[in-house]
Each structure stands twice: as C-alpha cells, then as structure tokens.
C-alpha cells in the first residue's frame, strides 16, 4: 500500500490559505476606504459649519455677495424657506403616495394596471432630480399658470413632491402588505365596509412603516437642490405672508450652491454654516425614521 502523501492539518503556506488571507485583507481595506469620505465630510461640516453658529445666523437675512466683506448675514429666511418648500412637497406627495400605495396593496388584483403602476413607480424613482425641475419649469414656471407667478415656492414644492411620491408609494405598499390578512378578513367579517377596514384597521396597523417612508422622503427632499435651482430660485428676503408661496423663495440647499461658488470668504463660510444645519436636520430625520422602523411588529 502506498503512503498517502498529504495530511489533513491546516497549512498556512498552501496557496488557498494564503489567498484566503489576502482577500480578507483586501475586503477590510475596501471597507475602510468606503468609510473615509463619510468621516471626512462629517468632520469638516461639523468643524467648519459648527464654528459659525451664533444667534444672528437664525434671525438675520443673507447679504448679497460683495455687499459687505466682513459678514454675510444669516440664513434665517433659507431655513424658513426649506421648511416651507418641503412642507408644500409633503402636502402634495403624502396623499398621492399613501393613496397610490393603498390602491396597489388593497385594491389591485395584480393585473396589468397595477403591474404598470409598480413599474412606473420604480422608473419614476430613477428619474434624475434635475429632470423633475425641467418638467416643473416647463409646465408651471414658463407658462405662469398660477396667477402669473413664474419662479415660486409652490413650483419648488411641486418639483420636490415628484421626487417624494415614489418613495412613499413603495413604503406604503410594502407596509400594508405586512399587515396580516386575518385582520382584514376579521373586519370585513363583522360587516365593516372596505373603506372602514382600510382607514380603521389596515392603515393604523401599518402606521410605522408608512411614517418611516414619509420621514425618509422628507429628509431626502429637504436636501435636494437640483429641482429648486430654476423653480423656487432664491430670495434675499423673508417669505412672511401667504402670497410668498407665489414668489421666489430661499432654501438652505440653493443658498449653499450659490454661496459656495462666490469668490468671497464670508459667503463661503455662510455656506458651511448652512451645510451644518442642513446635514444635522437630515441626519436627525433619518435616525428618527430608523428608530420608528426598528420597533417590533407582527410577530
């Protein structure tokens, strides 16, 4: 009998074992490289933006570039503007998104129409945000459809809502699908109508995933710039009455864009301060939405 020429002990010098270690090291390196940008961006925003924080930042108006070389004013109207425009976007997209999601999950029979809508939702989610801006410019800004207003907060809000709708539809659809069918059958069984079943039973049961989706879409919309650049434009004044929604409005993101490209240092540091506020609020919104989705449900 010939002697078996190998043993079963682990030998590091074998090619397969060396490869194993090498690939593990490569994966670790790639992971570290992927984390660097986040850490760097956050650090710079925290340091460069955080150092600008003061009370005037929230109460003052930004000053036009070159007006005063020492200070660029505050970002009060931009903070307010971001809230207003995002609010308009949410006001439009929440009913449409939740309604569309209810249709897909509760009414559709997986036919041709609902397949098309699901497909369309995915396609709409992939449409570049600047195209939403071009669309709104084409139908609202250039036609002056609202009372002759061209660039306006309303146009900006509508552009944002186009970006928010797909996210809300998808999360509503998926959230409602998680609701056990027993609940629906129970409700219909005691004689409730479909409308009552949905509004009293299914929607409340799926409240958490739906609110997660809404918060996520708001967080995303608040940081969007491209759809606002030529719909909401920018303003150096407060938007303080109801007519303001038909006038150009300031927003944090457009302020960062405009002021980052200015040659004046005071404008640049205002852009960093605005980034700090924007990033902080978006991170808080994202973490809030994570927390609401992490709660256990339907065990």
């Amino acid at each position, binding site marked *: 009998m010939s002697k078996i020429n190998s043993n079963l002990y682990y030998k590091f010098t074998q090619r*397969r074992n060396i*490869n*194993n270690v090498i*690939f593990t090291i*490569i*994966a670790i*390196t*790639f*992971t570290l490289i*992927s*984390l660097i940008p*986040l850490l760097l*961006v*956050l650090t*710079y*925003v925290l340091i*460069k933006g955080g150092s600008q924080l003061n009370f005037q930042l929230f109460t003052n108006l930004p000053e036009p570039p070159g007006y005063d070389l020492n200070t660029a004013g505050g970002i009060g109207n931009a903070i307010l503007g971001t809230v207003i425009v995002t609010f308009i976007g949410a006001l439009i997209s929440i*009913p449409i998104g939740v*309604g*569309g999601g*209810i*249709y*897909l999950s509760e009414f559709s029979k997986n036919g041709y129409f609902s397949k098309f*809508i699901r*497909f369309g*939702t995915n*396609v*709409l989610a*992939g*449409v*570049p*945000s600047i*195209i*939403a*801006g*071009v*669309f709104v*410019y*084409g*139908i609202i800004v250039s036609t002056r459809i609202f009372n002759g207003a061209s660039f306006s907060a309303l146009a900006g809000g509508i552009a944002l809502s186009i970006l928010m*709708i797909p996210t809300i*539809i998808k999360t509503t659809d998926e959230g409602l699908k998680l609701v056990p069918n027993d609940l629906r059958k129970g409700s219909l069984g005691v*004689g409730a*109508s*479909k409308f009552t079943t949905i509004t009293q039973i299914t929607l409340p049961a799926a409240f958490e995933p739906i609110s997660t989706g809404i918060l996520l879409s708001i967080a995303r919309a*608040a*940081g969007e*710039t*491209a759809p606002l*650049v*030529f719909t909401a434009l920018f303003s150096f004044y407060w938007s303080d009455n109801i007519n303001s929604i038909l006038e150009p409005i300031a927003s944090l*993101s457009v302020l*960062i*864009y405009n002021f*980052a490209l200015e040659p004046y240092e005071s404008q640049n540091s205002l852009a*960093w301060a605005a*980034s700090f506020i924007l*990033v902080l609020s978006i*991170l808080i919104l*994202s973490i809030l939405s994570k927390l609401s989705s992490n709660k256990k449900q339907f065990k």
Partner: protein
Amino acid sequence: MSISAKGEYILKRRTRPEKLVDKGFKSIVVFFASMVAIILLGILLVVFAGSLQSMSRYGLGFLVNSDWNPVTNSYGAFTAIYGTLLTSFASLLIAIPLGIGTAIFITENIIPLKIRNIIGMMVELLAAIPSVVLGLWAIFVMEPFIRPILIIMHKFMGWMPFFGTRPVGPGIAPAILILVIMILPIITSITKDSLNQVPIKLREAAYGIGATRWSTIFNVILPASISGIAGGVLLALGRAMGETMAVTMIIGNSNNFTWSILSPGNTISALLANQFGEADGSQVSSLMYAALVLMLLTLVINIFAQWMVRKLSLKY
C-alpha cells in the same frame, strides 16, 4: 341586525351613502395611483415638446456636435454627453470593487455582528448627506487635496489624451471621485441585501466539501446573487448619470471639448443646472433636447435594471 315582529333576523343592508363612500374612496386611490403614470408621461411629453424646435433644427447632429455657443445660437451637446458617460462609467469602475468588497465584508462573519451593523449604518448615512454639501466639501477640501496627485499623473501619463492637460482646479477627475462617493452606498446596500438572500445551505454545502471562505464567496455566493448585484450596479449607473449638484459644483462647466479627465468639462445635468435659469428662446429648446437625451439614457438603464433583477434572479 334587528329582530322583526315575527322573530326573524333581518340582514342589514349597507346604506347608500356607505356604498358611495366606498366607491368614492376606490376611485380616489385609483386616481392617485394613476398620478404616477400621468407624471411620467407628462415629463416625457413636456421635455419632448420643449425640444422639438431644437430637434428639427439640429437633428441627430446635436449628439455629435461639440459646439455650444449661445452667442452664435449654435448648439451641440457632445461635450456634455461625453462628460456624462465618462464620469458615470469611470465612477462605476471605481465604486464597484469598493462597494462589493464592503458588502462582502459586512455580510461575512469576519468581525462581530455589532461592528458590522455599525459599518453598514455608516455607509447608509453617507447616502443621506445632500449632494450640494458633498459639492461644497469637494470644492474646498477634496479638490485642493488631490490636485498635487493629479499633477503627478499628468507629468507621468501626459502622453495619453486622457491625462493630456494640466489640472487647474475644478475638472472631470474630481467629479468622478465625488460620484464614487455618491454611488458607493447604493451599490453596497443592494449588494448586501442580495448576499443576505443567498440560502445558508449553499454556503454550508461549500464549506462541507472543504472550500475556503473566499472560494465559497467567488464560486457559490457571488454567482448566486449576481442578478441583484447587477441590478444595483445599473441603478447606481442611472444615479451617476443624473446626479447634478455635486458634479456641477466641481466639474468646471466648460463646453470646450477635450478628451482629458484633468481638464474642466461638463455633463448634461450640470449644463441644465447652470444654464436653464437664464436661458431663453432656442437655448431653452436645446437644453430641453439635452434633458431628453439624459431622460432616455436613465430610462433605458432603469428599465434594463428592473428587467435584469426579475429575469436573472435564481429561485430557491
């Protein structure tokens, strides 16, 4: 339900208003759902109608002509189209290995789950940072930092047309890097999801016949999840093509065509962001034409991505 005088049960019928509410509710949600289709068609129609004037004037020559001159009213989008394709594919080339490597690392049990979850969450946080903030960071931090490296690249590889110009600040190369940062989270999270969906039995079988961790990954896990990964990569490509703000801020917005990635360039979305607000007349039409090209590019890629995920996915 009530009992009649004879002692029989009478079934309560739904009242008319109740039925109306039910029907009305259904029509409302059907209308809301169709809004998706209406918006999509609306976008295509508006952009198409807006570009008709320019389309009839320049035809398909618009796509290969690199002259964009509002003064002489002569428009061609080749510089922007080249920039869009170059930046998106180059950034994909860098982001794919990084993203898939990271996804593998956080799905394998090399380090404890808790740390891996934190890493996964951090990568997703990167996606939450607005693109305009990344652009600001790119202008003031990243670009000055990498400029010496780009200058060295120009010195040693300047004979190639891709590195033929001396870097002067904003340009295509920093735009590519910022795009890498923006699409990395997409690739990582979608790859992670598809790796997690591979049944544990496959992995155990591979380990059982003596495969090492990485031969299991390359020969079993990755092939099994390739459809999801490919779909994620295509989605990332679509996102890279449409990405606007960060690219606009760092690419230099030059409409002079060069092959070099070290010189300022342009992308379709940057062109739109820069000129749409102040454009009029035939320039708007030409911008709409460029927007149509971008829209169709991303549309085709997105539809292909969805088809791929559905057709190629293995069923277990």
